[in-house]
Each structure stands twice: as structure tokens, then as C-alpha cells.
């Protein structure tokens, strides 16, 4: 069972970025026992996202756009977020 926060993130990213591709992977189990890890997971994620909205944005701006959309989750419990953000080729 995926952690419920995964669906929340998927909904927000889909609504905001209208992605051509969106892949969210829960890496929490790799970090069990590490600081920031919580029982039940939902703390460490990788997001691969392809969106036309990244056109013309620097790497930092792309990341910040995702950080802003997921600000609540990052504040609450998402401790690590690996981002692969591309524009359509």
C-alpha cells in the first residue's frame, strides 16, 4: 500500500504541471533508521516529471517550482525529494 501522501503529491503535480510523464517512487524503505525516516514510510521520494512548463526555466527554477507546489508536504513529512525534471524533447 503506498503511503497516502503519494496520491496527494501526484494530484498536486498533475494539476499544476499537466505532465507528459509523472513517476513517483517511494524510497523510504532505503532510509529506515536514517534521521528523518518515520515508521510507515512516506518520507523519501523520487519524482520524475516531464512538463512543457519547464521550458526556459533554469534547473534551480524548475526545482523551486516543484518545491512550491509540494511546500506543505515538504514541511510536514517529506524529508527527501530527488527530482528529475525535464521538458518535452
Amino acid at each position: 500500500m503506498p503511503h497516502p501522501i503519494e496520491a496527494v503529491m501526484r494530484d498536486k503535480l498533475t494539476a499544476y504541471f499537466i505532465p507528459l510523464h509523472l513517476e513517483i517512487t517511494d524510497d523510504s524503505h532505503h532510509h529506515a533508521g536514517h534521521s528523518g525516516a518515520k515508521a510507515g514510510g512516506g518520507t523519501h521520494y523520487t519524482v520524475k516529471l516531464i512538463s512543457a512548463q519547464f521550458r526556459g526555466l533554469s534547473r534551480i527554477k524548475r526545482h523551486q517550482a516543484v518545491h512550491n507546489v509540494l511546500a506543505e508536504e515538504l514541511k510536514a513529512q517529506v524529508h527527501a525529494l530527488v527530482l528529475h525534471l525535464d521538458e518535452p524533447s
Partner: protein
Amino acid sequence: MQTLSSSVHDTIDSLVKSNDVVLFMKGTADFPQCGFSAAVCNVLEHLDVTFKDVNVLESDAMRQGIKDYSNWPTIPQLYVKGEFIGGCDIIKEMFQSGELQELFDKK
């Protein structure tokens, strides 16, 4: 920034302005305490770049302060010549594309 206590802000400001390359990380360059921080150290060491390591785990004020200073929610964070370059994903991407080497050659 108003939400940031001026002393931490000033400390960070002085660190990034008085060192060419600064890595805010969890642990130290010799003993990183997080895989993402370790990955960036490895890249910098591979490129033979001398850098100042700042262990954010030593101070809660610094740990939060650097996030506010950079408007970036995660650690590690790399600064080169006072400019925020990015976190672990960006550094790895720039290393793989050769941009990071170019950046250090230029600066």
C-alpha cells in the same frame, strides 16, 4: 529576510562570500552523515575542488537558516563564488553533462 534571525543570515552571508566553494551538508567532508551530502562531496573531490564544508547538524539555527537563505528546502546546498548552484540532483546532473567542470574552470 525577515523570518530569518539576522545573526544566522549574516553568518551564512559571510561564509558564502569569503569562501569560493561552500557546501552546506549533513556531517563533514571527512564523515558525511547523509547519502545525498556524501554524493556531492564525492563529485567535488573527484573534480579536485577544495571546498569549505559547513555541518548543518551542529546547529538547528543553521539547519533552518540555510533553507530560508536559499529558499531551498533540502540539504546539501552548494555555493560557488557567492552563487547558489543547487542541491544533490542538480550537482549530479551538472557533473554528468560537464557543466560543473566548466563552472569551476571559469570561476
